């Protein structure tokens, strides 16, 4: 389908219309502290931002999520209740292309061939993704090294390109097409706008200076499991979960029972390969006893194991882990050191 366009002045009214029918999530916040939240008015959306602090993966995979609940007072019986699935259709407006792409990676895990995760898949199916490309990528962005880009369409249904007074709207999927057709704020794009769009995209792509040969990293890692490199690179790691919890593609989780009085719930919560308990067995054995093994797992999983299993690296180059690591353990530095081994 040919590109559409929407005037920036129309965006708030479009969002207000969408809110009536959909649950709409958009970036909100200030002072560089942006998170994705459900908005109740179009004016709450803050679209002039670099990226959110927390990735929007939590809209599909919340940090804590009830799998089912039960009543312990019922004695001999068995009453397990699944949470009602969300009926209302949802929209994420203003997600960055890297984060939209992360959903494609997560689909490999939660919507696999053998097993499907109904909690994730249900939310994924009823959500339309409207991304806004990045005119001003950050210096910590390296999406182009991972098969993405500031205007990558992977994972989006519609993608918006900011050309100043208006957004050019690229229609990526049938789902996106349906939505665009329904709302008359979207108009057919003018030809001169399209050339502006192409310039914008080209300029933004050139701004991403970092280029890491990830395929070579993957190949190198094939034979690096026992390399002393991991002792050195992990030495400063604090073993916290900043990198994994703020990562749009990290998906590891724990399952526990939470009981209050006679009511119980089985909940899943984000977990991290950086934590000692992640692999600690009841017997006391831990196959990943120190930060060396744990950091190795994180890097190997993202850049070697995941590639072997799903044909792509489990990283979209969003740079959040680089920005927020308390000790500046920079994943790009790690990847470049691997290439230099």
């Amino acid at each position, binding site marked *: 389908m040919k590109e559409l366009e929407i005037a920036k002045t129309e965006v708030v009214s479009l969002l207000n219309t969408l809110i009536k029918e959909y649950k709409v999530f958009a970036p909100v916040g200030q002072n560089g502290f942006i998170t994705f939240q459900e908005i109740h008015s179009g004016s709450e959306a803050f679209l002039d931002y670099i990226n959110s602090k927390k990735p929007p993966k939590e809209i599909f995979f919340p940090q804590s999520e009830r799998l089912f609940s039960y009543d312990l007072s019922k004695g001999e019986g*068995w009453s397990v209740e699944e949470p009602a699935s969300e009926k209302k259709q949802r929209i994420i407006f203003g997600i960055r292309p890297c984060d939209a792409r992360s959903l494609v990676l997560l689909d490999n895990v939660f919507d696999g061939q053998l097993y499907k995760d109904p909690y994730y898949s249900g939310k994924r199916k009823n959500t339309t993704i409207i991304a806004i490309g990045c005119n001003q990528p950050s210096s910590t962005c390296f999406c182009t090294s991972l098969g993405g880009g500031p205007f990558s369409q992977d994972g989006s249904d519609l993608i918006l390109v900011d050309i100043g007074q208006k957004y050019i709207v690229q229609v990526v999927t049938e789902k996106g097409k349906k939505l665009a057709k329904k709302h008359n704020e979207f108009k057919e794009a003018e030809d001169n706008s399209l050339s502006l769009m192409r310039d914008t995209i080209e300029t933004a792509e050139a701004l991403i200076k970092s280029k890491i040969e990830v395929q070579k990293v993957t190949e190198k890692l094939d034979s690096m499991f026992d390399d002393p490199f991991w002792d050195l690179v992990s030495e400063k790691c604090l073993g916290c979960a900043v990198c994994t919890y703020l990562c749009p593609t990290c998906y590891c989780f724990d399952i526990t029972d939470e009981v209050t009085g006679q009511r119980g719930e089985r909940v899943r919560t984000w977990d991290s390969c950086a934590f000692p308990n992640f692999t600690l067995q009841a017997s006391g054995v831990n196959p990943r006893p120190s930060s060396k093994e744990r950091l190795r797992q994180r890097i190997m999983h993202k850049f070697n194991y995941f590639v072997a299993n799903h044909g792509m690296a489990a990283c979209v180059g969003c740079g959040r882990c680089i920005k927020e690591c308390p000790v500046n353990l920079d994943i790009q530095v790690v990847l470049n050191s691997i290439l230099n081994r």
Partner: protein
Amino acid sequence: MKNPYLPLPMRVEKIVIETEDKNIKTFSVKFLNDEDAANFNYLPGQFAQLSVLGEGEAPFGIASSPTEPGELQFTVNKAGVLTTALHNLEEGEIIGVRGPLGNCFPIEALESKDTIIIGGGFAFTTLRSLTNYILYQENRSRFGNVVVIYGARSPGLLLYRDELEKWEVRTDLDLHLTVDRAEEDWQRKVGVVPNIVKEIAPSPENAYAVVCGPPIMIKFTLPVLRDLGFPPERIVLSLEMKMKCGIGMCGRCNIGNQYVCKDGPIFTLAQLNELPSEY
């Protein structure tokens, strides 16, 4: 879409205290709903997640054999929160089961071969399943000779003792029981499992070795099997890792790119040799 996280209710029909230290119990459980029972099709080597509501969930190898319909059996060593909760159960109580999960022993490959089953301690559970599967009247002729070498620290720590006595008198099974420390009336072998394997020296010809036991037993048994001439492709192991989801999603039980819950728990030594030694 079937929710793979939802446990199905089963009633605890029978609880047997297996060992003299009372730390290991076998639970015979039965589905409350016939439909669930009909859908639960498993083979030896697979496992299931057992739930005690309010306490949590943990994975256990299925100790019963599909040739023993009607009930499932799980043998549980008391070690952590969930296993303690299971040990506190009484007959008639309801637990949750998710499964069957994971792959099974390479049954088809074992057919027409000799099978050397080597087990130690309370890791004998799925080996019991496999042995009974092979011994089952309608299956037995498809398999060659079966040698079972099973050891524990002392006679009182051997699992399934009534059944072992029945196996001992069978002619279609060569059973060798051993203990690290003998007691007065112990008439069988004395010595750790690797030494007994060496002593019995089963022929690797047209044979598979299936090994389950504590890490230390496996560590010393593998060189014995290698020296006897068993190729890594015909040494089969069952691995244990911490698991939560059991369906390859929660991310913790991997060895390299293989998830023990989904791609395992059964691997040949040849497969493991290709993976990092992180287990």
